[in-house]
């Protein structure tokens, strides 16, 4: 496979803020790259450079073999952009928006009209075709936005946080469309702060933070790299954390123990070793410490994300903190 997007050492600063601080990445044709990062990580800046909306300070980027800085118009003719920033016209109807873009792309009126109609049909917007987009629901608006970016049958589609602010049903719908596009051969670069979304859609994930790529790989590779499962134990009293830590250190020397004083919890990387987990629980009970609750925590992309970006609310005194994960919903694998 060949790289259809190739980015080398992009830098872009806004005043003192380094939005892009040496980003390099590549995307193979026909695949989905998930660009994952918190707000302000530089995701949108990267997309704006790649879609020719913004000039980088230094570095190079090619899209479909065209240089985004010097061959902007060629790039524009093979890309589609949907996202939080590129929008549709609220005062125009859905059909008018699509026809306008079709005509701007060089279609004659009839051709633009046909293309608009088939897209509206495909995106289940035919009934709303002649209503102003301002009257659409959030999900419909995002669909018409996506439809507009597909008028020219782009080879490369940029989805900039495509489901931010969408309800779960609309999000699933959008994911289904994205999958279908990829199945038909479209290359997709997706930015998201939703790990689930990257996990669902992306073949490869690039994690960026503070304008730098801090990790990349498949979702599974990233999960593996942050370690396996961990045992999380919640104590009734904070005073138990200290003696418990010593017991854990004795039972599993060299294993990372993450301590969270606020939650009265310790978590221990046990990977697949459930026997070790059982021994730990037994020893702790035998020594008279009062365990409130315990469970095995599966690593999620959330954990990966928190571990890599350091944006964890857990105590960050360790150099390599084992992620504790803060969302109880992600902790649903009981040991027993």
């Amino acid at each position, binding site marked *: 496979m060949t790289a259809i997007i190739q980015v080398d050492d992009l830098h872009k600063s806004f005043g003192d803020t380094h939005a892009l601080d040496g980003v390099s990445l590549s995307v193979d044709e026909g695949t989905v790259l998930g660009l994952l990062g918190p707000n302000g990580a530089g995701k949108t800046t990267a997309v704006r450079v790649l879609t020719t909306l913004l000039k980088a300070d230094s570095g190079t980027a090619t899209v479909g073999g065209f240089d985004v800085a010097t061959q902007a118009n060629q790039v524009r003719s093979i890309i589609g952009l949907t996202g939080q*920033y590129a929008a*549709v016209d609220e005062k125009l109807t859905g059909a008018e928006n699509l026809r306008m873009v079709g005509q701007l792309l060089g279609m004659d009126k009839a051709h633009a009209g046909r293309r608009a109609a088939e897209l509206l049909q495909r995106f289940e917007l035919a009934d709303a075709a002649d209503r102003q987009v301002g009257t659409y629901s959030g999900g419909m608006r995002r669909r018409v936005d996506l439809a507009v970016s597909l008028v020219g049958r782009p080879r490369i589609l940029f989805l900039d946080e495509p489901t931010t602010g969408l309800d779960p049903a609309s999000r699933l719908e959008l994911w289904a469309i994205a999958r279908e596009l990829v199945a038909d051969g479209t290359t997709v670069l997706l930015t998201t702060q939703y790990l689930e979304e990257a996990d669902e859609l992306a073949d490869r994930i690039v994690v960026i933070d503070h304008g730098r790529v801090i990790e990349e790989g498949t979702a599974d590779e990233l999960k593996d790299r942050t370690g396996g499962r961990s045992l999380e134990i919640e104590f009734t009293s904070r005073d138990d954390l200290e003696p418990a830590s010593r017991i854990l250190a004795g039972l599993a020397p060299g294993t990372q123990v993450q301590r969270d004083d606020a939650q009265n919890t310790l978590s221990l990387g046990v990977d697949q070793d459930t026997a070790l987990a059982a021994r730990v629980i037994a020893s702790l009970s035998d020594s008279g410490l009062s365990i409130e609750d315990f469970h095995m925590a599966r690593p999620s992309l959330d954990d990966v994300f928190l571990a890599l970006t350091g944006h964890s609310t857990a105590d960050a005194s360790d150099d390599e903190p084992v992620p504790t994960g803060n969302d109880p919903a992600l902790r649903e694998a009981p040991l027993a």
Partner: protein
Amino acid sequence: MTDVLTPDSAVHTRPHGLRAIAHDSRIIAWRNLIHLPRTPELVIFTLIQPVMFVLLFNYVFGGAIGAALPPSVSYAQFLIPGIMVQTLVFGSSATAVGLADDLQKGIIDRFRSLPISRSAVLNGRIIADAIRLTVVAVVLIVIGYLVGFRFEGGAGMGLLMILVAVSFGTAMCWIMANIGMAVKDAETAQTAGFVWLFPLTFVSSVFTPVATMPGWLQVIARNNPVTLVANLLRALSLGEVLPGTTWASMTTPVVLWVVGITAVAAPFAVSRYRKV
């Protein structure tokens, strides 16, 4: 059989060069014109406000200010050309608001991600705004006729009057385009595009003869382009030059202002557009 979602590696055949600019500008202009009837504020701004101004000034101030005019000139005859400049200049501020709104909402990013000519978005907006200003000018003439204004010099002079007024208003739209792109949000653009228009239009011969102002202000008012345009419009509506002037002396400064403003503000706007 290609599906609706199948990508296409062919690069679209689009017109080239000037034809591309004309093609894209026309489509963007169409888009902006569609906005007009669907934007109630703009309809009010475009149609109601000039009507209100003509009626208010003519009946409220007409008696007092009319007394300062030569007996042969009615206040309506004096007022309509002045109100026309003032209304079109204020009307140009909608360019700033519309453009800032497009920027804020991401419409400009959409256009800029398409392979269209770089000046089309601005051209299209200005073309639509020029058409909007023409509508305003025609509305003013209609109202003017109801309160006693007449094209004394005939229809040809009358058309020329509208042309001059719209040209000046359109030149102002280019300045407003720069303001709209500089402030980047519609509310700020509303203020930034508006405030400076009050001194610009009031320190002029729009509502009252310049001779009624203090001496230092008269210097400013006489050289204000708004005064120069208003005076030319008056001459065109009367079909004869004002005392002590010639067509050349009245027309030249106006042409220079219109060409000068456009020649500076338009390229500046286009280069700013490339960087937003």
